């Protein structure tokens, strides 16, 4: 979809943002040099009258030396700071690699590869934060390794063109070198922080107070601390201004890349209406998210104080520019978003559970069952040579001779049946596609084992529909949980089928009140949902979201 551009074009917006950013960055460097010179001058002057005269009479020589020291300190600090690798940053954000077997992730991976083609930056690692919130970010370390990340909530709520626009925005940050800029500026702020802590460390000043030569230095200590604080404050203020300009620049670059301002406006609108996710953001990296993760009232305010503390411009201002380029308005966007479809997946209403044929099986000299075909798939004691008898007729055949069962045995051979066993029934779990991903399902107790991150995916995605009866049942169950003492499952604590670590019974959340089992191993963090618990969580979260949307 291409629209003709009005007076303020994407190229104009880009050039203006670039110019302003360059000016502001030079200003930061000047501020840093000036304050470093001032602090250095005060320290030297306090050390003795010879140094005082050196500063006053040989001002330009002093200035050159001080600026060189400032530059050298900055470079050393920067080289040490840039050692933090991409993996360390991603670990801190809780981001994990995308899963190619997940249908939503596959589309996201493809879109990131498209961004590689558009920007020439190769490779860009696609990562996902397993959070139901909506946000996106890009990051680059000191060794030119890049990553673009989104949350599960973003993947579930945006369609392909909207996700492309969001990824284009993040790719634009990488092209503009914003991550490196953020590292450089946070490096300068770090130097001011170190100076401040130097001027407040009481032990150092106790030692200095014993020497006669530094009486003036001790007296000047509050002033030095003030200079360092003021320098930090002004640098931070200018960086906030740069950060906001960079967001406009990234928006303009994104529109230039994807040629679809309407989809970007819709994506930004959707993300701004949603919970943005609460995850640990490393210092200086909040500006690299498409919207501030730590939302505050000041984000949407304008004026001096709002500008002082906000890394992102108000969403309303960004949307206004995008809607001008797309020649649309908020009312049209709201109306169009009612017909939203998610990334590449058709919404399927829950299939009515047909009665699958059941079989008795001759195991260890006796007839057992009846079992459904899926249960037979899980029972490794039943083989193609086992005699079976359908419930519907008295014909006894070998399992391998039944067409339906033969297909299941072939499925078993292709490793749909996992190595992990149900912690309650001790039968092999079966890999089942669910909401665009996979769960490990027990066909006997209907429990589900979810690997780390899968529960958040399932909650965020709404491919599966639930009938009115099911929703009503779950709501009734929830009401009873509040009124009566909850029925406690007396099954002993189970062990994780993946890593055999003890699992703990925890509430999923106060909203749902569903008790699930979580693996205590930090490297595993798998979740076990007993039969029906996963559907309860989904229904309760969806109903809560619907209720919030109505308000």
């Amino acid at each position, binding site marked *: 979809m291409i629209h003709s551009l009005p007076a303020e074009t994407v190229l104009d917006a880009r050039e203006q943002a670039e110019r302003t950013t360059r000016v502001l960055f030079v200003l930061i460097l000047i501020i840093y040099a000036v304050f470093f010179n001032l602090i250095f001058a005060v320290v030297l002057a306090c050390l003795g009258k010879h140094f005082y005269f050196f500063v006053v009479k040989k001002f330009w020589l002093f200035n050159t030396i001080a600026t060189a020291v400032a530059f050298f300190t900055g470079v050393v600090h920067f080289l040490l700071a840039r050692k933090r690798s991409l993996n360390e940053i991603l670990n801190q954000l809780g981001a994990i690699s995308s899963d190619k077997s997940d249908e939503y992730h*596959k*589309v996201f991976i*493809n*879109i990131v*590869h*498209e*961004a590689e*083609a*558009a*920007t*020439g930056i190769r490779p860009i690692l696609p990562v996902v934060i397993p959070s139901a919130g909506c946000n996106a970010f890009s990051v680059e370390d000191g060794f030119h390794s890049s990553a673009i990340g989104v949350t599960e909530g973003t993947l579930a709520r945006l369609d*392909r063109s909207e996700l*492309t626009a969001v990824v284009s925005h993040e790719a634009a940050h990488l092209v503009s070198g914003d991550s490196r800029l953020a590292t450089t500026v946070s490096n300068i702020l770090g130097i001011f922080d170190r100076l401040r802590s130097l001027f407040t460390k009481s032990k150092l000043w106790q030692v200095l107070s014993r020497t006669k030569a530094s009486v003036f230095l001790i007296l000047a200590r509050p002033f030095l601390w003030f200079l360092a604080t003021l320098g930090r404050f002004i640098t931070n203020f200018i960086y906030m201004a740069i950060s906001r300009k960079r967001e406009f620049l990234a928006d303009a670059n994104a529109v230039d*890349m994807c040629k679809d301002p309407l989809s970007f406006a819709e994506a930004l609108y959707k993300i701004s209406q949603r919970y943005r996710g609460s995850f640990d953001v490393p210092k200086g990296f909040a500006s690299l998210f498409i919207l501030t993760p730590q939302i505050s009232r000041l984000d949407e305010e304008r004026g001096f104080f709002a500008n002082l503390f906000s890394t992102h411009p108000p969403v309303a201002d960004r949307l206004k520019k995008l809607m001008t380029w797309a020649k649309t308005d908020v009312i049209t966007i709201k109306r169009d978003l009612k017909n939203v479809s998610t990334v*590449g997946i*058709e919404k399927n209403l829950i299939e009515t559970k047909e009665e699958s044929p059941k079989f008795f099986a001759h195991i260890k000299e006796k007839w057992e069952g009846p079992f459904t075909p899926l249960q037979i798939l899980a029972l490794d004691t039943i083989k193609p040579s086992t005699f079976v008898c359908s419930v519907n007729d008295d014909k006894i055949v070998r399992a391998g001779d039944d067409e339906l069962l033969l297909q299941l045995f072939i499925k078993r051979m292709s490793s749909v049946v996992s190595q992990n066993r149900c912690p309650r029934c001790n039968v092999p779990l079966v890999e089942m596609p669910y909401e665009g991903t996979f769960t490990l399902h027990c066909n006997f107790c209907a429990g589900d084992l979810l690997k780390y991150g899968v529960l958040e995916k399932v909650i965020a995605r709404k491919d599966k529909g639930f009938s009115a009866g099911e929703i009503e049942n779950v709501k009734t169950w929830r009401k009873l949980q509040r009124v009566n003492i909850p029925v406690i499952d007396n099954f002993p604590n189970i062990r994780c089928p993946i890593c055999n670590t003890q699992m703990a019974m925890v509430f999923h959340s106060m909203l749902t009140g569903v008790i699930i089992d979580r693996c205590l191993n930090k490297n595993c963090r798998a979740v076990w949902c007993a039969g029906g618990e996963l559907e309860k969580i989904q229904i309760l979260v969806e109903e809560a979201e619907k209720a919030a949307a109505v308000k």
Partner: protein
Amino acid sequence: MMWFFLIVLASVVLYVVSIYNKLIRYRVESENSWSQIDVQLKRRHDLIPNLVETVKGYMQFEKDTLTKVMDARAKATGSGDMQSRMKAEGEISGLLGRLMAIWENYPDLKANKNAMQLQEELTTTENRIGYTRGHYNDVIANYNALIEQFPSNHVSRMFGPFQKKVFFEIPEVEKEVPKVKF
């Protein structure tokens, strides 16, 4: 005075070297960009037989289009020079675009998981071709401008050959809008 001339001479030499290096960088980047387009085009060639095999059972009335897609693919893989190859690739893009547009008329196809995955793969391949083409044209634009602008045009003539490159242009066939019949 001597020092002044030496400084001026050194500056001129450095400037000429920087222009030459820039020309080399742009030339290498344009070759790299073209190879990236090539990678995506080959990816599309590999997907086409799979696509035709999957959809031919469903799209009974599009046999003509499917045959044309296979023929265009054979032409593209067999072409020698860039012009005829671009023309063949343009034909493929046009025909695939037409197929994607009429995909909605076949609900059975949309229920086929393999077909939907193929559609996603083709969509992403077409997008990647578009982006790499855009990137290639941007690089070519910068390269051609540098060859023609003053004073870099003198440097390019002195240390050539730096030939202007052709943009990856869309042939007329692809520009035809697919007709969607209901």
